[in-house]
């Protein structure tokens, strides 16, 4: 979230699209009802199903699953063609006036540089025109046809209301009504918030859906303001924290990235990431990358990380390609993976295409499960009848199942969707012999380390030198680990302007990332968390819930990264002269008297940079402004374009009916053998989408009696028209099948799923909630990833669980 949960109460309009906040995040959704009650806010829901969110909305419109870019592109077209945008904001704070390279182009759905064999782009033309001064060339008059504004306007002019309605199946009038409601928030004192979740991420073009919505928000001036923002409602209690800490195949802590094979030279690695400003007077905060990186390496390798060995740069593994979940299962399927550790993760249910996942796991030599609950994955080798029909005798995998503690039995911090790090305390001992995760990780690691110490082996240096300064080595305490990622001074840290002034004494905890150094004098395991545990103590445990400004900014409750800041890009809530666009919801403002920015939040800006300096609000970008034109950052193009889901009821993309390359996402990675597993609409005519129910949490709560009572048995949802066609009544058992397998479940027949008119044909949607499986105390059911295709978003490789094809029949 750019903003945070409580801030939603400050909004005038809520757009829930690509998510179902009432269903999946009920207690966060309360702030929508607060905005409705206290600000007369309106709620719009756009979803293939009339959801629980829709039940309390002011306006609902249906949409075909997987067509959100078409819808939002249509909104962009509406805003630009009706001139309902926040002019000062886009002119001052975005790349509207920046000129794009002449070589860059877009033809019939494909951008310049496409290689159909590799399904990827050479992105060298996807850039700005750079002047002789090294800065981007701009045209403040916005007349140049190569300026981002003109190019974007031309790009989205194809997204007419009729085209939107034809692709999305959304009635034209409903679409236009929503455009009108959204356009209202282009007023400087109006804000819209966008709340989304897996309904956008789980598509082959999910990242671009989110990007299109962010572009809408930029046009309206709704980023950085109270009650605005792009708000990703994340699915797990610490999925934000684990992402922040870089537990993804290509990441280091704090969104630093692992080097690739080609990056053999340390300084080149740093320079490539320490972006120099692309416009005069801009901060370009990533210029400090080296400080973050060296401090992390000092935290990990201590005295063994030195200037001489480039802070142990070579000890980091280098990437020859992505090792995302899908790639790893592909490798496993090919027999290239021997061991797999699942720490609180249930891939047999969570990864796509169960049959492929199951066959892959069976090729492992060993598997380690660390979990509080008996998961399906832990028994992938066990025969559970129709729900998991395997022969254990044929599966040679050695499996360990290690019981871990749950939240109630441990201390520690979690990061919520709004980036708050909050501490929690142990209430009881775990059942039986269960251990906490730190002890389990330590138990395995210390034994490996001892073997390397004794026997040697492949490249033992990073293992032997990993810092392990724990009072009880077999049981690293949460307090010690929290202090380590928050960071401390290894030598006295002095003021860069005055070397005699000591800011932090050697051995003390740091106050924040501004104190990090790239000379080895500071240690910090995760720079964005820096200051969470300072000399003042554990700020994550703070419990002062006072809200002095009345807009929900409880700055002394817990700690929010970065730097306890609650609303990102908050400089953009003020006009160029530093005055808030909406004084009634002031986040920060420039105070000429003190020469500082301040207010209800920590400024997301250089705190003493006066408005006259001309520094722009988006300080993490080297341009200083927000980008409509994504440069080379996205796999499938600088402007989001609608492509059909990999499995779609349409034979062609209505925007590019003659170009088969532009039917589905041209940059989505598909493994060779998986093409044959995709289904066609002749055999699988219905659009299927999977989702969660409010009564359950993923695959956990089927182990929880109270939740099993309230939603005991697997079901699928179909509309009344399809039910009539197929002779299905509510309560009948139906078989839903894709080209990869089938599930059987009870039918819920509902008015809430409408049949849509799409490109001249009727399209039915089948809804499949995910929560059942073959373990648990709820009624057993089929893992729904039995149905889903093994393909992901072109940027993140997040699987396409939200739009694929099935057939339905009465059993």
């Amino acid at each position: 979230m750019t903003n945070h949960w409580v801030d939603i109460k400050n909004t005038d309009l809520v757009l829930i699209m690509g998510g179902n906040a009432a269903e999946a995040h009920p207690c966060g959704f309360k702030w929508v009802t607060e905005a409705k009650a206290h600000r007369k806010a309106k709620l719009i829901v756009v979803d293939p199903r009339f959801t629980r969110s829709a039940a309390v909305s002011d306006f609902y419109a249906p949409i075909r699953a997987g067509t959100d870019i078409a819808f939002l592109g249509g909104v962009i077209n509406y805003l630009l063609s009706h001139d309902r945008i926040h002019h000062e904001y886009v002119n001052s704070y975005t790349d509207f006036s920046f000129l794009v390279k002449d070589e860059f182009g877009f033809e019939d759905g494909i951008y310049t540089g496409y290689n159909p064999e590799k399904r990827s782009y050479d992105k060298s033309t996807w850039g700005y025109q750079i002047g002789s001064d090294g800065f981007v060339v701009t045209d403040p008059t916005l007349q140049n046809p190569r300026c981002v504004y003109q190019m974007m306007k031309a790009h989205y002019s194809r997204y007419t209301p009729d085209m939107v309605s034809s692709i999305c199946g959304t009635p034209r009038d409903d679409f236009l009504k929503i455009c009108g409601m959204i356009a209202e928030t282009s007023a400087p004192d109006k804000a819209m918030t966008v709340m989304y979740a897996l309904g956008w991420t789980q598509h082959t073009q999910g990242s671009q859906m989110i990007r299109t919505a962010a572009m809408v928000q930029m046009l309206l001036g709704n980023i950085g303001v109270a009650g605005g923002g792009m708000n990703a409602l994340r699915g797990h209690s610490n999925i934000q924290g684990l992402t922040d800490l870089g537990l993804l195949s290509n990441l280091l802590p704090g969104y630093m990235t692992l080097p690739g094979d080609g990056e053999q030279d340390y300084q080149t690695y740093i320079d490539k990431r320490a972006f120099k400003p692309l416009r005069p007077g801009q901060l370009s905060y990533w210029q400090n990358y080296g400080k973050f990186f060296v401090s992390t390496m000092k935290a990990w390798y201590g005295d063994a990380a030195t200037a001489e060995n480039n802070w142990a740069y070579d000890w980091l593994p280098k990437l020859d390609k992505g090792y995302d979940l899908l790639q790893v299962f592909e490798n496993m399927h090919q027999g290239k993976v021997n061991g797999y550790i699942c720490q609180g993760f249930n891939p047999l249910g969570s990864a796509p295409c169960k049959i492929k996942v199951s066959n892959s796991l069976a090729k492992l030599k060993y598997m380690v499960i660390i979990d509080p609950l008996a998961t399906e994955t832990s028994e992938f080798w066990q025969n559970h009848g129709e729900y998991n029909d395997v022969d254990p005798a044929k599966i040679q995998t050695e499996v360990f199942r290690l019981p871990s503690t749950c939240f109630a039995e441990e201390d520690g911090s979690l990061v919520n969707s709004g980036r708050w790090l909050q501490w929690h305390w142990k209430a009881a001992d775990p059942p039986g012999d269960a251990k906490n995760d730190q002890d389990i990780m330590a138990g395995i690691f210390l034994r490996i380390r001892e073997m390397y110490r004794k026997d040697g082996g492949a490249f033992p240096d990073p293992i032997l030198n990993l810092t392990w300064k724990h009072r009880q080595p077999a049981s690293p305490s949460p307090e010690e680990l929290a202090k380590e990622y928050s960071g401390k001074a290894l030598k006295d840290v002095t003021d860069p302007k005055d070397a005699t002034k000591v800011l932090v004494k050697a051995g003390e905890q740091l106050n924040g990332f501004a104190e990090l150094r790239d000379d080895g004098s500071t240690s910090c395991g995760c720079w964005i968390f820096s200051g969470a545990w300072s000399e003042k103590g554990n700020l994550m445990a703070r419990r002062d819930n006072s809200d002095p400004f009345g807009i929900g900014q409880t700055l002394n409750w817990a700690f929010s990264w970065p730097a306890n800041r609650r609303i990102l890009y908050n400089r953009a809530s003020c006009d160029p002269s530093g005055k808030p666009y909406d004084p009634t919801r002031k986040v920060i403002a420039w105070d000429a008297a003190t020469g500082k920015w301040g207010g209800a939040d920590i400024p997301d800006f250089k705190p003493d940079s006066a408005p006259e300096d001309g520094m722009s609000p988006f300080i993490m970008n080297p341009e200083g402004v927000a980008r409509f034109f994504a440069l080379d950052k996205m796999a499938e193009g600088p402007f989001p374009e609608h492509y059909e889901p990999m499995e779609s009821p349409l034979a062609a993309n209505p925007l590019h009916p003659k170009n088969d390359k532009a039917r589905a996402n041209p940059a989505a990675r598909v493994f060779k053998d998986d093409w044959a597993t995709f289904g066609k609409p002749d055999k699988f005519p219905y659009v299927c989408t999977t989702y969660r129910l409010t009564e359950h949490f993923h695959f956990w709560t089927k182990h929880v009696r109270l939740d099993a009572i309230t939603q005991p048995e697997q079901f699928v949802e179909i509309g009344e028209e399809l039910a009539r066609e197929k002779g299905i009544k509510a309560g009948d058992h139906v078989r839903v099948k894709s080209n990869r397998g089938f599930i059987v479940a009870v039918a819920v027949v509902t008015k809430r799923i409408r049949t849509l008119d799409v490109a001249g044909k009727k399209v039915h949607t089948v809804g499949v909630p995910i929560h059942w499986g073959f373990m648990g105390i709820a009624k057993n059911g089929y893992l729904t990833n039995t149905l889903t295709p093994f393909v992901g978003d072109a940027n993140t490789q997040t699987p396409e669980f939200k739009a694929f094809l099935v057939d339905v029949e009465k059993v």
Partner: protein
Amino acid sequence: MQVTRRQFFRICAAGVGSSSLAALGFAPGEALAEVRTFKLARASETRSTCPYCSVSCGLLIYSLGDGAKNAHKEIIHIEGDPDHPINRGTLCPKGAALLDFVHSPNRLRRPEYRAPGSKEWKPISWDDAFSRIARLMKDDRDKNFIATNEKGETVNRWVSTGMLAASASSNETGYLTQKIARSLGMLAFDNQARV
């Protein structure tokens, strides 16, 4: 108003019955109307955060006893923390059911081991499990570690063993796991954010 014969009979029966019962000495005692005793009066209260979604609802966990050494802190009730700025005491159906998660019959209690081809779990001690896992990991790493690629570039990676980390675990666990995974050279390493 219509009263069936059966209803009339039942009305009389109950009426007579109750007064007659009293006459026979079966009166329900003093029949003091008391509300159920408030069950949390001296239970221990611990602040926590809901382990499910990312709203981060504050929790009050109530356990038996006052923390005395001889009292086992059995968790008896969980409700929302009214001081928490986000949930303000509320909980969704999952959060409100957390007591049954903590006490789920499917909680794992002992380390278990499944041998190749076997149909069943066998108990294993923590020490044996750790040692055996460490051995398997080291052997695989030693055999398949890639120090340099075909171009001779230093790459120091180990991709024949992978890991999925838990995005419901704490930052402290996550940080420790990240450190360990990268020190081993692991790249096949993701968390639920990927899906």
